[in-house]
């Protein structure tokens, strides 16, 4: 009896908080048929927002993957100077409000900022361009790959790398032939999380964007802009597009979450 009560209470909570609202977006989007949705998504402004989101993701993700794998490997295998500081810096983006991240990038690259002063005097604007938005995105999505890779590397141990070394492999050979294949699912999982965050970031990117429709909006910024401009069809269409991408990401997360740990070697 109690078992069923708890089960349905929990499922009901999930339904009200999660499932019903998400389903509602689908309903709202197609309320007036498919063609307005298509029109909204193929509009110049929507296409520009999608392109900018993709551009930022395409730059931010590889940078964070390469940084994440190399720093993760250094943390797990080599002696890092000031390891507590390195760990603190890696985890900071998770602990910070995205708006504060945006603010930090804003302050640093503004006309009077430490880096901004130099950039402006040399005619290289960064703030209010896609560059600042990309920097903010790299910042907020920095920890995902490192945090996936380090525990798996520690679980893996360095015996396979030692075996490769004794068999004549150089550090790079042993990394690419032995270590990377062994941690590949953790890398994939961390990459999926990085993509999700890069595509979906709102607060950090908002502060450093010039917020001009058709020019400097990412897809999430575009959603907000359309709501404020009382254009719900466009907002819901873009929102649904992002939701569908997230569902795909969720499928990816589910598929890889159990595979990312080291296969037991006993």
């Amino acid at each position, binding site marked *: 009896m109690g078992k069923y009560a708890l089960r349905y209470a929990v499922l009901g909570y999930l339904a009200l908080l999660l499932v019903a609202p998400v389903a509602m977006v689908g309903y709202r989007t197609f309320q007036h048929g498919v063609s307005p949705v298509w029109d909204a998504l193929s509009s110049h402004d929507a296409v520009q927002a999608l392109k900018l989101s993709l551009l930022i993701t395409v730059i931010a993700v590889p940078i964070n993957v390469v940084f994440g794998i190399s720093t993760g490997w250094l943390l797990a295998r080599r002696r890092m100077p000031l390891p507590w500081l390195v760990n603190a810096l890696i985890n900071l983006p998770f602990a910070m409000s995205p708006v504060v991240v945006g603010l930090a990038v804003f302050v640093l690259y503004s006309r009077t900022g430490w880096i901004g002063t130099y950039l402006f005097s040399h005619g290289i604007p960064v703030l209010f361009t896609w560059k600042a938005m990309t920097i903010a995105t790299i910042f907020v999505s920095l920890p995902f790959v490192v945090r996936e890779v380090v525990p798996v590397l520690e679980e893996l141990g360095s*015996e396979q790398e030692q*075996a490769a070394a*004794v*068999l*004549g492999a150089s550090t790079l050979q042993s990394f690419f032939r032995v270590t990377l294949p062994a941690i590949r699912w953790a890398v994939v999982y961390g990459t999926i999380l990085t993509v999700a965050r890069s595509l979906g970031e709102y607060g950090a990117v908002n502060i450093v964007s010039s917020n001009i429709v058709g020019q400097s909006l990412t897809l999430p910024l575009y959603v907000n802009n359309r709501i404020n401009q009382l254009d719900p069809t466009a907002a819901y269409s873009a929102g649904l597009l992002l939701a569908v991408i997230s569902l795909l990401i969720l499928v990816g997360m589910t598929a890889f979450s159990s595979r990312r740990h080291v296969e037991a070697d006993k």
Partner: protein
Amino acid sequence: MSIQVRDVSKSFGDFHALVDVTADIEPGHLTAVLGPSGGGKSTLLRIIAGLETADSGHVLIDGKDVTNVPARQRGIGFVFQHYAAFTHMTVWENVAFGLKIAKTSKPRIKERVAELLALVHLDGFASRYPAELSGGQRQRMALARALAVEPGLLLLDEPFGALDVKVRQELREWLRRLHDEVHTTTIFVTHDQEEAMEIADRIIVVNHGRIEQSGPPEDLYDRPANDFVMSFLGPVTTLGGQLVRPHDIHVSTRPTTGAHRATLERVVSLGFETRIVATPAGGGEPVTVQLTRNQVHELALEVGDTVYLNVPHVAAA
């Protein structure tokens, strides 16, 4: 290959794993490095392999100083206790790894891997993954992988430690036969004295980071340099304040010169062997003696009897 280890020391923090260790390993021999866990024997092996750097001292291979040569350039084979199998590669790929690194031609790799898989009796397992093998099979694969590059020196770090008793016994005999065929200079680390005694040509006993004694097994057993080596290499018991082997004690029911009087406490029959435990008359630790069943019958020993114990070549105190 001959190996010379000269005054090698190694510490981990304030733990001294090796202290001024000097050892010589003869080419073509099967040498066991024997000692209790934590005694430094694995560290010694890893320093010879180049997987660990000595704090001081030198390692010479065939007379050449290799102290600063990285592991990958030493041309050795290494077998790890927990196999260190490349989990994402098949058995075939595992064995071929070193050959691929050495840029061996494809047909030669095929030929060599097939040869080795036959040698370790894994012919039918080429396309399996390590996770699909038993512990013994995985260790044989690891051995094939190490031998593939035709190393001049084979190092095995507690190779059978993670296996169960029966498989361990099989692999041990198989390793000895393999060595007799291949003649590669081989060093293996073990904490199992029986394993060392059974297959090694020479044994180096390591304890507390130092070499206690080295030599052929029978020398170490019969002429141990100290109490530690004596008690580590075989069963011991105390008689008249001295360590002796239980099978060296002579038992008599009548007093003999220099014999210790004792009261028989227990008679344990173990088939062919019978073990008796007797308490010395003056008190002290009970003495264990190993006899054959026939000897016990001849002496008609029963619990409570007074017996006289002595070791023929050890004078009573």
